[in-house]
């Protein structure tokens, strides 16, 4: 996947300002930055839901600008909010979104059960999502985004507000997907998550990418990589603490 000089201007305010990077097949690529840095806007443009002001994104050889329909077949999106029907069961949600991806009912049910197994909620398949804890809802949110077996998965702050057990479950799931060869774009403002999961990280601030490298190289750029943290890197690059912004 290649992002080329991506820009988004909302009513005269530049939210994303000339962002460019490439993501290699099978890697977990992190977009790290405080709230308002432009991570979600970037993901929305990349995942075809928000028109870009200029620039382009190419996924699997298809331009998002020119062939968004082709791109949609290749991607899965786990949004920051719990984008689920709370009145329905976990299984119903997964089956429904699977059918919206064009799957037959039988195939959607088969994949839904497999995905719920993957996120550790198989036994709660028939339970209403409204009754789930925040962490369980996040896991269902993730499971839905896997229904079309995407080649590229967008995970937008998938662990916000979840308990440690669910967080670990989500990490295990993401690492398992990477091991199967899935490419993942992961946004977060939690340093330790990015450090643990990502092969490479782009640090964003004020709509721009201010640094891009592996976590170790980023840390090495300001000191001993075993001593400094990504938080220190962000402070060094922007003069501000990352968490203060959130």
């Amino acid at each position, binding site marked *: 996947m290649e992002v080329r000089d991506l820009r988004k201007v909302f009513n005269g305010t530049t939210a994303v300002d000339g962002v460019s990077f490439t993501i290699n097949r099978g890697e977990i690529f992190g977009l790290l930055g405080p709230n308002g840095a432009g991570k979600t806007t970037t993901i*929305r443009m990349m*995942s*075809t*839901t*928000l*028109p870009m002001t200029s620039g382009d994104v190419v996924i699997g050889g298809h331009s998002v600008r020119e062939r*968004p*329909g082709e791109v*949609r*077949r290749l*991607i*899965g*999106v786990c*949004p920051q*909010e*719990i*984008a*689920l*029907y709370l*009145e*329905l069961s976990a299984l*119903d949600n997964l089956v*429904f*979104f699977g*059918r*919206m*991806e*064009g*799957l*037959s*009912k*039988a*195939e959607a049910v088969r994949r839904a059960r497999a995905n719920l197994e993957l996120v550790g909620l198989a036994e709660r398949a028939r339970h*209403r999502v409204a009754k789930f804890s925040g962490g369980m809802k996040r896991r269902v949110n993730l499971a*839905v985004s896997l229904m*079309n077996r995407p080649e590229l998965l967008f995970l937008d702050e998938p662990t916000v507000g979840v308990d440690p057990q669910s967080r670990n479950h989500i990490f295990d799931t993401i690492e398992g997907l990477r091991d199967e060869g899935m490419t993942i774009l992961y946004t977060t403002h939690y340093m330790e998550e990015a450090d643990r999961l990502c092969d490479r990280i782009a640090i964003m601030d004020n709509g721009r990418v201010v640094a891009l490298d592996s976590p170790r190289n980023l840390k090495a750029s300001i000191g001993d990589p075993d001593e400094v943290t990504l938080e220190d890197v962000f402070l060094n690059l922007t003069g501000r603490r990352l968490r203060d912004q959130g």
Partner: protein
Amino acid sequence: MTEMSTFGSRPLALAGKELKVFFRDPQMLFFSLALPLVLVLLMTAAFGGQSRFSVTARVVDLDGGPLAAELTGRLEAVPGVTVDLLDPETAERLLEDSDIVNLVVIGEEFSERLAAGQAPDIRVRLRGNGDTEGQIVNSYVESIVREMLGESLVARQVQAMLAEAGLEVPVEEVEARVGELFAETRESPLVTVAEETVGVRPEPIAQFLPGMVTMFTLFAISLTSVSLVEERRKGTLERLMTTTLTRAELLSGTWLGNFGRGLVQVVFLFGLAWLFFNVLTLSSFASIILFGVVAVASVAGIGLVIAAVSRTPEQANWIAVFFTMIMTSLGGSFFDTSGFTGVMGVLTRMTYNFWANDGFRRIILEGEALTSPPIVKDMVVLAGIGLAGWALALALFRLRGDDK
């Protein structure tokens, strides 16, 4: 190889999801099914739930004689009239408290004066104007007393004529014979007026049920159109935007969902009317449901327009409520607007409710067939409204930035 869906399955899946959400939303079920049912039952209770004429005549008999008993007997023999004999104190109190609105007081000299061919001692007391019931009782009493006085005068005349002819016949025998003749006349009147009811005898529930169903289908579907706008806020619409779902498929699915919900309402409410209120036959119930399919398809198109033009749930709510109230008032859900002419006549015919109410009422009240020209006209107009709504929604709704 991955098993993919067939053409049209996504709108069906969307509609299925909408119906599942509908049946699991207690608030929506209350507004769509329970509230209209409660209102229908309340209105039935208020209107008495009966179409047969029925009044109660409250009578105080101070006379106690045979002719007073004859009067109450004849009064009770009138179809639909029930006589309630009261003691004077109770009757006075009930009248004073407005618990009864009419009171027939048979005076102490009633029998004596009537037997003598004199104006009898009787009064009908009414609370206020006595309502319709009091007026009717008054009219019956006056008629019966006049009849009895006439019989008494005839008996006296016959007796006088017999006496003039030199025939000594006892008074009681003359009165009995004349009484028998009048009784025969009452049993087998020489002149009768044939009564013919045109169309189906209208039950009160049959008159207001169509308006209620029309109003509540419009109301519920307008409100549920908010759900599409709500999906924008919840993020589920954005999630749908990342799938290969097309705008036409989304609108088709939403329309089908609205249609399904409306059809559930129509079948539920008219089904109850058929099963429990005896206002529909099996045949007219089938016609109502078939007509309902067209009506609900139409209103589902209207719901789609509201969903397409609204940007926030609040906006959609306001549009839905405003739209429903205007259409319901102009369209004759509360009162008959079919006689409106001029500008009002044009306005009322621009509403979905007017055409839906007209068709439902024709089937229930007039017993008209679906193929009758006025009902065919109603269905054509309703289908047109639905198609126009669909086209307008397709033109106005943008699922994604790349929608053309």
